[in-house]
């Protein structure tokens, strides 16, 4: 009995040791960047994790609209993500509903095409995207970027939502049809209210994807006042990494903290959406 207890003690101690090491590895970069953002001076050569005379200057610089585009980038990113989210939810609800509830010529091929398209990342065709955007005048516009994001989101999310809609019994819409409800009425008043959980998941995914995207925004957007956060933050690094590092640190903290809080808050939706996607679609 004693040996069993000591074995348990060793096992738990080792577990806590591993967890402690992981805590350090996870939290160290976070503390380091927060510390850096409060350091006086621009570079890090003489900085400390807990600065002697902490300053909020770098945050003030970022909020100074005259000299910094940071707030604009923040606004751009949120604007683009919200627009993408709204358009994606609308178009995906329609496509998923059609594929789930109707049997029409071309349905099978359509589903197959969506499946294949969701596998190819849409930035793979980046040459084409660049040339086409130039040709259509959508280069360096947020509209062009939003259209690209929505188009890229449709195939995967259609499969995701179709999987969920398939699980809503068809008897419901059949009986509504008997009662004389039209197509649109069934869609809006019967099926969509029941699909709220998956709509939330699709909305979440289609908000997060543009927010975290770097490559498409980098290809399409060239003027500094139209940057998204990812491109803007990269430009702070690209110019003079060493010379502006503390300001960059402040910029990172301002993105990381609100998004992380939001994420932790909504985490269960992410997991449910992804497991639904994994096992169903």
């Amino acid at each position: 009995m004693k040996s069993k207890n000591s074995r348990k003690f060793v096992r738990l101690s080792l577990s806590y040791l591993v967890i402690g090491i992981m805590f350090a590895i996870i939290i160290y970069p976070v503390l380091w960047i927060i510390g850096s953002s409060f350091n006086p001076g621009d570079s890090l050569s003489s900085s400390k994790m807990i600065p002697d005379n902490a300053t909020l200057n770098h945050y003030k610089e970022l909020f100074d609209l005259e000299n910094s585009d940071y707030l604009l980038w923040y606004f751009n990113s949120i604007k683009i993500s919200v627009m993408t989210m709204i358009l994606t939810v609308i178009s995906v609800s329609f496509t998923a509903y059609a594929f789930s509830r109707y049997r029409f010529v071309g349905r099978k091929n359509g589903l197959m095409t969506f499946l294949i398209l969701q596998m190819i990342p849409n930035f793979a065709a980046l040459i084409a995207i660049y040339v086409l955007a130039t040709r259509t005048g959508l280069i360096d516009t947020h509209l062009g970027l939003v259209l690209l994001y929505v188009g890229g989101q449709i195939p995967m999310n259609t499969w995701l939502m179709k999987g969920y809609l398939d699980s809503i019994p068809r008897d419901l819409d059949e009986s509504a049809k008997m009662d004389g409800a039209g197509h649109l009425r069934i869609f809006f008043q019967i099926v969509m209210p029941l699909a709220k959980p998956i709509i939330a998941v699709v909305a979440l995914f289609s908000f997060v994807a543009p927010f975290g995207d770097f490559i498409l925004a980098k290809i399409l957007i060239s003027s500094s006042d139209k940057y998204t956060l990812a491109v803007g933050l990269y430009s702070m690094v690209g110019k003079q990494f060493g010379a502006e590092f503390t300001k960059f640190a402040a910029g990172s903290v301002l993105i990381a903290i609100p998004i992380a809080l939001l994420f932790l808050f909504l985490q269960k939706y992410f997991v449910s959406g992804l497991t639904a996607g994994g096992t169903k679609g």
Partner: protein
Amino acid sequence: MGSLQTNIGPQVTRTKHARNALLLSIIPGFGQFYNGQKLKGSIYLVLTVIFFTTFFQTLNIGFWGLITLGEIPRLDHSIRLLIDGILALLITVLGLVIYGLNLFDAYKDGKKREIGLSLNSLREQYRNLIDNGFPYLIISPGVLLLVFVVIFPIIFSFLLAFTNYDLYHSPPANLVDWVGFQNFIDIFKIDIWRTTFFSVFGWTLVWTFAATTLQVALGIFLAVLVNQKDLKGKAIIRTVFILPWAVPAFVSILVFSGMFNESFGVINTTILANLGIDPVNWMTESNWTRFALIMIQGWLGFPFIFAMTTGVLQSISDDLYEAATIDGASAWQKFRKITLPLVLYATAPIIITQYTFNFNNFNIIFLFNNGGPAVAGQNAWGTDILISWIYRLTMTAGQYGKAAAITMILSLIVMSVALWQFKRTKSFQEEDMM
């Protein structure tokens, strides 16, 4: 032939309506008129007329451009012609689809008449149009967008792979020409391209397997560790372990790129210094950059697997473990024979998408060190994977044709892996395909 027979058709051969309608429908609408459906017939006929009057010029120039890619430099812009050509192709496909529907419709209604069914009245036709048209109507916005922002670029890249489009063959000053499989042949035949391709491809594979396996192994290991019954503080541990997933990846990668910086980065100046290790050239020696990248991806990617695995573990019934304990199984045996198979079975699709994700993980490669350091003697940098190499070829080297060819190779790889995976998933097998 068909039109001759129709004069006598209705009275004499009561069984040939379907064939007659089909043959008449070679001119859209006439088959429907023959079936007595004036509304439908007029719609098809009008559509046809509109199609040809509107698109004749587009199609004519489009196909000419697609075939020749222009004949006079400075006057003909090859790339614009290529775009117009693809547009002409898409319009043609659309036209053929409508044409096919017209033939099918005429044939179907003809068949109905043959077996003596009365055709729908005008009112019913209208109802039918609404009922059958509704799914098409609601998928059209999404599909249209998909065609223009996803399918169009894919066709464009595909065609570009067979041209010599690069800085020296660049409109408007020069024309672009079709070169068949020359780009693919060059990549495998010309020394500098071949060595670069295989070194980039090799690193892409090493990167994909090392980074993904690290994050998967770490995620599963930690999930099992935290899931131990007698471990206290699960909630707080899980929240902290999710953190790297919660912070947007581009922020974390840029922060790491600062931490690994050779002149001021905290890894060299503080951590390694305290351990008494000499500074490491993280950013200027390929192998060290690669090592750092794999570690960082482990950091970024494990929480996702951790969360998934935790979900699976919580759904495994305790009975299994109790039974195993009674049978005298050791902790390791329980893990090997119960936990691991169940976890892997449930998360397999997600794990595979993690591999394909890292195969194309442009962000970490580009944001950490621009794909660098630069390497002498090849046009890719030290940590370039295929996708970032394509970016470099396109955006800085102007090797559009070659970049498109490599894109084709990359897409083929990703698609075969993904198709293989989806063929095995349940939903795909259960899907009633019509």
